[in-house]
Every structure is written in C-alpha cells, then in structure tokens.
C-alpha cells in the first residue's frame, strides 16, 4: 500500500507528514530506550515480510501485515513503520521521502487503531479459535482501513484519481484475505509460543 512520488498534492502531503510526525513523536515518547532494539528488529521483520508474495492468478499480492505490526508494537508502530518505509524508499524506491509521511500514516494508523480495538481481545482470548478470529479480524481490518485512507488521500488530491482509487481499493480485497489469514495464524503461533510478544505496552515501558 504505497503512494509513489509526485502523485498527491502539496496539502495532502503536508497534512500526512504532520500527522505521521505526531504519531512518531508520541510513539517515541512512550518507547523506553531499552525498547529501541525490539522496535528496530520488528521494523526489519515487517520490512522482510513485505517481500513475501502470495501468487494470485497470473499475478501476486504481497503481504502488508500492518495489523500484525500494530498488535506487536502498539504506539511504537509509528516509528517502526516510518523506519521500515524509509528503508524501503532507500532500497526499492517504492515511495520516497516526500510521501513518507502519508505512507507512514496509511500503514501505521490502521495498525494502531487495530491494536487499540483488538489488542486486548487477542491477548485475553481463552480458546485458539478466539485468538485466530481476533487475529484475522485485526489483519483484514487494518488493510481495509489503509485502503480507505489511501482512497481518501487520492480523493483529497482533487481531480482525476477516483477511477484509480476505486481500482486500487478493489485490488486490495485479495490482500485483505491474505493478510487477515496470515495474521490470524501468526497470532495463533505467537499466543502459544511467546504470549509476551503480543503485549507491546509491557515491552515499551522501562523494566
């Protein structure tokens, strides 16, 4: 879910940058110095995970996993994804610095919202089925929210983009399915093997 350079208008870019900067600032303030390696390592994992492609017909979709990032990182999802996107901009030029703010917001805000809405449900679920369901919901919902934000950003950009936005939104339905199920299974594994991974508030605070 990326916007490339040169597509969005100035006000949208500036608004996205301001909101993303605020999110990053809050995330950094809540994150203790001891949590920096954890945040960075998870940023690197989500960057690598975005290289996983699921074949779909003649094409393929790549995983976004911003919901999973939210569940593991909490508010730190903002700095982590800002860094992951900066890396991506350096490595692949999927979207460079002028769109970094908007792209961070598109990915991190849904992750944060999903964490606030479903984090407790994922942590507190008693049965595997409940964990899986909450994880699936988190994964699919965060992709859908990102798609809505992307459409909004393109529509705010004014003219001509609604056709593209609609097509992009439709193209993200398979991503929602893939991301939702992958997030569900991943959360299921973490819940069994390392439940503390799903508690970012505990990891963020100083020991």
């Amino acid at each position, binding site marked *: 879910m990326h916007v490339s350079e040169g*597509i969005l208008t100035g006000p949208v870019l500036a608004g996205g940058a301001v909101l993303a900067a605020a999110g990053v600032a809050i995330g950094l303030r809540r994150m203790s110095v001891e949590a920096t390696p954890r945040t960075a390592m998870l940023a*690197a994992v989500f960057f690598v995970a975005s290289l996983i492609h699921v074949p*779909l017909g003649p094409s393929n979709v790549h995983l976004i996993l911003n919901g999973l990032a939210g569940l593991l990182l909490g508010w730190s999802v903002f700095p982590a994804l800002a860094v992951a996107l900066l890396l991506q901009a*350096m490595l*692949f030029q999927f979207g460079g610095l002028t769109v970094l703010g908007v792209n961070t917001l598109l990915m991190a805000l849904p992750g944060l919202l999903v964490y606030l809405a479903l984090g407790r449900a994922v942590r507190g679920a008693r049965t595997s089925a409940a964990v899986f369901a909450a994880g699936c919901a988190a994964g699919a919902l965060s992709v859908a929210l990102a798609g809505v934000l992307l459409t909004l950003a393109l529509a705010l950009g004014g003219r001509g983009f609604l056709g593209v936005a609609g097509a992009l939104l439709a193209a993200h339905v398979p991503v929602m399915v893939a991301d939702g199920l992958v997030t569900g*299974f991943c959360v299921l594994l*973490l819940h069994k093997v390392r439940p503390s991974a799903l508690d970012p508030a505990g990891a963020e605070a100083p020991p």
Partner: protein
Amino acid sequence: MSCLGFLGGGSRVHRLDPRVRVASAALMSVPIALSTGLAVPAMALLAGLALASAARLPEAALLRRLGRLNLFVLFLWLVLPWSPPGPGAGPAPVEEGILLALAITLKANAIVLVFTALVATVAPADLGHALRSLGLPDKLVHVFLFAIRYTDVIHGEYERLRCAMKARAFLAKFNLHTLRTFGYLVGLLLVRSLDRAERVLAAMKCRGFDGRFRTLHAFAMRPADRVFLGAVLVATGGWMWMALA
C-alpha cells in the same frame, strides 16, 4: 539484498558532506512535489539527470529502479486521460489528463533521480548521523540504524526458512495451506528476532549503552559543500517561486 548498490565510487557527489546531500534532496523535493505545471518538474528532471551522471551511478541498478517506478506511472497513463476531473464532473478533455500524467511522470522520475544520486550514495551509518544532525530524535535514529543493521540478518534468516520449506516441496498458491504456512513463517521470524533484540540489548548494556548517540568521526563542511548547498538553495527558491506563482 543490500542498500549498498549506489555507495561505491568516489565521484564528486560521493565526496559531499552527507548532511548537505540529505538536506539538499529534502529541500529540492518540496517544490517538485508542490508544483502544478510542467516547467518545474522538467527542470528538476534535468537537475536529477545531471546529479545522477555527476555521481556516476551504476546504470543497470538505476534503470532497474526507474523501471519499477515507471511501471506504476504507466498504470496512471492508462487511467488518467479518461477519468473525470472530480466527483460528479463530466468527462474532461483528454489533453488535461495527458498533461497531468506527463507532469506526474516528470515529477516522479525527477525525485527518484535526485534521491538516488544524493541520498542512496550516503553510507547507512553516515545517513543515521546526518539525519540526527538535521534534527531527528536520537531514539528514531537508533531504530533506523538497528533496522539497517539487522534487515540483512533477518532477510538471511527468511531465506534459510524459505529454503527449508522448498526442500519440503512447499509451493506457494492462493490457498489456506499457503497462508497458514506464511503465518507460521512470519511468526517464527518474529520470535527469533525478539530473542535477537534481547541479546542485542544485553550486549549493548554491557558496553554502557545509555541511549545517547555517539560517533567516531565528525562531519566537516568544505568549500565545495557550501557552493553546492548554495546552488541547491537558489534552485529550490526559484522553483518554489515558480511553483507557487
């Protein structure tokens, strides 16, 4: 996979102060992104081409990067000329859409060229230091530097796991089995990287890590840096004036 593809080479661009390069790229991208006509994007594209040739970037890697970008631009060319200018508006003249698509093509390529020439030529550690001296908070710079350091490590782990999956005849398709396997794959990567983060933190604490950023070599502005920064400021000012006028 490595972000070091554009690092080699002792061109004049590579010798500029990393802070100057990063700041210049950031400054130049503002008027390019804000401009509405074709003049600023066209001039920026020329500037980007000049910088890329001055940096003697490896052509193959640069073309690959531009190719990926222009794949998306091509998609816009297919859609934009035929879409209405806004919600509820009637069909616009095709020329308007074509002009818009042309402007986007110029802008996107210009920004990529400028950033590849100026930012991708900065070594990652220097980039972190440069970002910090440009005002980014220490914690964010640390996260950035750690992420650069461990992306290759985690990518290596990912490749090993994929290799093991391949050895067990795993074939990715759009089905539940694939998605379950990928879910466990990501989960395993996460567990291992969380363990690694703990080990790294322990090792850093052993060495007296207190959250402050230290570096062994300081940047120094040379006359060439001042001249370049001055030229960038003049160009950016002019473009800004043209973009807003």
